[in-house]
């Protein structure tokens, strides 16, 4: 068998495993209970590994917020490591400290678990003021216990079918999981009302109702379980993680183990909120590109035309960019289908060979954080990884197999 055929076979297996995963939301717990091995003064973050010295402004801001929330001093001495090294993902800064609640997900097929840090527009973007800390306290003290109680009472929520329904209602599951947020809320309202105090249930429902992007943590967690299922397939060139920490962009590849292939993270192109401009923008950040790794987000823009305006693109441009993703992927998702494409499936399984060969880089929906600590969200847009991540991974793969 030629190397090409061997790799094609391995990639088909990697994608088969992605599709076999059955991600299910089962709990909401404090990180120290959800994540095996998490110790005091451990702080997990998005993207590939980074030191305090090289950490981006927004991620540092989020660490400062975590310090205030945990009431710890001397943030430079925290034990930093990536969420991806602990079976989890976090949006934007992705900063997780032991008392912070996280979503717990389980792959029903394999029993493997993942966690996903919560989505919100303040600490995740580097704000560390009282409002940012207060939001975390509200989560810790009320929202997370209520959701945890309700989802345990429900017995869990399967996410692949829910995402499929959301895709038919105009979501792409990264910048726009609005329909999935509503569907998820509708699904758990009876369990909330049955299992927690009525005023708490109502506040919880109202909170989620007001936050269209709430479901992002769950689409990320589902994508993480799928991507993890595809890890360590010998000779596979399928990407199993794309993640950024605001300093570096990193990817991991199935057949190359836990190695990161990194390059400086780019600044997204997009729209800015009141008072901010591109001059304020920090480099791209967050584990949320795990959604694109699993065929969502920028890969299914044709199904979410409502976000084109926010991304600053026309329907034709967005559609063309997303269609190109079929050039760099190995399969289509059988149930995540797009009505606008006559029900073709989401393009799934990025092959680094195809990326390097065609020069087509994955397209990623993203939010934009400030370059300095201390600001909430400042914008949203589109970005692509640096080509160097893919070329260095391909060179490493060639060296590994001796070609």
């Amino acid at each position, binding site marked *: 068998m030629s*190397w*090409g055929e061997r*790799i094609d076979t391995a990639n088909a297996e990697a994608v088969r495993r992605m599709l076999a995963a059955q991600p299910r939301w089962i709990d909401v717990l404090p990180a120290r209970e959800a994540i095996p091995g998490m110790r005091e003064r451990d702080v997990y973050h998005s993207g590939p590994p980074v030191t305090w010295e090289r950490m981006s402004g927004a991620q540092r801001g989020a660490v400062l917020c975590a310090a205030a929330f945990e009431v710890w001093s001397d943030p430079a001495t925290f034990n930093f490591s990536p969420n991806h090294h602990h079976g989890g993902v976090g949006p934007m800064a992705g900063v997780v400290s032991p008392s912070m609640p996280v979503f717990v997900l389980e792959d029903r097929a394999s029993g493997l678990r993942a966690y996903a840090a919560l989505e919100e527009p303040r600490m995740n973007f580097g704000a560390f003021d009282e*409002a940012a800390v207060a939001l975390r306290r509200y989560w810790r003290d009320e929202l997370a216990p209520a959701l945890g109680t309700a989802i345990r009472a429900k017995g869990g929520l399967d996410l692949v079918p829910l995402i499929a329904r959301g895709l038919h209602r105009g979501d792409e599951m990264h910048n*726009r999981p609005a329909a999935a947020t509503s569907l998820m809320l509708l699904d758990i309202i009876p369990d909330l009302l049955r299992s927690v105090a009525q005023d708490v249930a109502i506040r919880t429902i109202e909170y989620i109702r*007001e936050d*269209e992007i709430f479901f992002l943590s769950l689409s990320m967690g589902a994508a993480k379980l799928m991507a993890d299922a595809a890890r360590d397939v010998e000779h596979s*060139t399928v990407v199993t993680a794309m993640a950024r920490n605001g300093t570096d962009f990193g990817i991991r590849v199935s057949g190359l183990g836990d190695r990161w292939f990194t390059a400086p993270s780019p600044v997204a192109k997009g*729209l*800015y*909120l*009141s*008072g901010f401009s591109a001059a304020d923008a920090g480099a791209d950040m967050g584990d949320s590109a795990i959604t694109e790794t699993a065929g969502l987000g920028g890969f299914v823009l044709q199904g979410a035309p*409502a*976000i*084109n*305006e*926010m*991304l*600053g693109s*026309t329907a*034709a*441009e967005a*559609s*063309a*960019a997303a*269609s*190109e993703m*079929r*050039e760099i992927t190995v399969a289509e998702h059988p149930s995540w289908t797009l009505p606008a494409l006559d029900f073709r499936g989401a393009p799934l399984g990025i092959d680094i*060979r195809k990326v*390097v*060969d*065609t*020069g*087509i880089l994955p397209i990623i929906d993203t939010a934009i954080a400030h370059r300095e600590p201390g600001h909430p969200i400042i*914008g*949203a847009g589109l970005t692509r990884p640096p*080509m160097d991540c893919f*070329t260095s991974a*391909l*060179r490493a*793969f*060639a060296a590994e*197999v001796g*070609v």
Partner: protein
Amino acid sequence: MIATRVLPDTYRDSGTLMALASRLQELPGVTRAMSIMATPRNLELLHTMIALPPLECAASDLLVVVEGAEAAAAIARVDELLIRRVVAGGGATAQPRTLKSALALRPANLAVISVPGPFAAREARRALRRGMHVFLFSNGVSLDDERSLKREAAERDLLLMGPDCGTAIIDGIPVGFANRVRRGNIGIVGASGTGIQEISSLIQRMGGGVTHAIGTGSRDLSDAVGGTVTMQGIGLLADDEATEVIVIVSKPPSSAVADAVMRRAKATGKRVVHCFVGGTTTLEDAALEACGFPAAARPSGISHRLPIVGLFSGGTLASETRMLTGGEILDLGDDEFTRGRPHPMIDPTIRIERIRAVPPDATLLIDVVLGEGSHPDPAGALIDVLRVRGGKTVASVCGTELDPQNRDAQVAKLREAGVVVARSNAAAALGMEGELPRMAATQLARTSLPLFGGQLSVVNLGLTSFADNLESHGVPVTRVDWSPPSGGDEELARILDRLT
């Protein structure tokens, strides 16, 4: 100052609200702009950001707040700015970036490839694997790649013209650098681009016509390649009912390959004419013979004043002239002159520079090659520098009156500048006078190679002029916005080749 506007019962998606705010913020005299749905939570958030006047609004209302010296003027434009600005040309879909996506848009049966040599073989291989015939213009393809591509094409019963194939005429349609000629009864198989151009143009000018001209690539008749595509081309013309005469043109082949090719050609039972440039038959002789005329009598010596300097743009035309005159004949289309600059058939600059340096007393021989792909007015580009040489330049104009440049007009321009224009390349070299014989032109019925199913449909990778020319002949062309793998890194391309 702060200006506010409430649009009652107006819902807009958060993306649209962001876009509105950003458009307001671009207006002069605006420091900040916000647009939100006036939900209690949003209002609360807004109050923390800005000192708002009392407002009457409900959760279903859209609230716009603008701060700045020109806030009032800005807020007056909200309705207008809420309407989506359509970007000019924004409706256009992106060009496909690969052969695969081009074929998803429209099926095609011929890939025209002119991307840089190191990447050309892989594109050709992909086209073959998708069942397409290939016109491979690129040079710089390795011999190993050429052999394996030709083997693969033969296994798949596909035609691979090239690499280093400049010219073809498929079903009357010029591909690459080719001249416009009428349809007729003469088929050409050629390992030489300008050789095919010269013969097909002479045939047209004598009143004859061409069924197909199949380019094989310059090395096809070498021992290393063994004439694979030449044999295949002869076979195709043998099966083509409209082809009554088969012309084979090449630079001198190895004798073993030449024998095999000639045996194959004779076995077709059709009339066969061959011109191995450098042998006894000139390109003109071959054209005359193909049209049924006797070869012209050659003069015993050369009448040109010595020394003879040749500055050519066509490789085969240069070789033929070198062989016939023994002069100092340069092929300015050779790699040594074209590295990093355009071919002299497209850009006359290098030839103009060289002509200036020719000694005034020498006889200058030049070719002027017309047709698809060539400079739009090559004679016009040269006449200023030629005029000062008086009558000491002899030119041949390879082309026809049907070509975009119109041969008659080009000849007139040259003659007006004092250039002697001969009827053919060989006539220019030997200083032969007189015009070509003519027969009554016959327009033959259209036939087509069975290979192309009667309808050429093309994917173009590389030179856009090739796509433009094919489209001007009504051929559907999908253009690939090609870029080299990984920005042209050849080491990565080699890795990719081994891993795919």
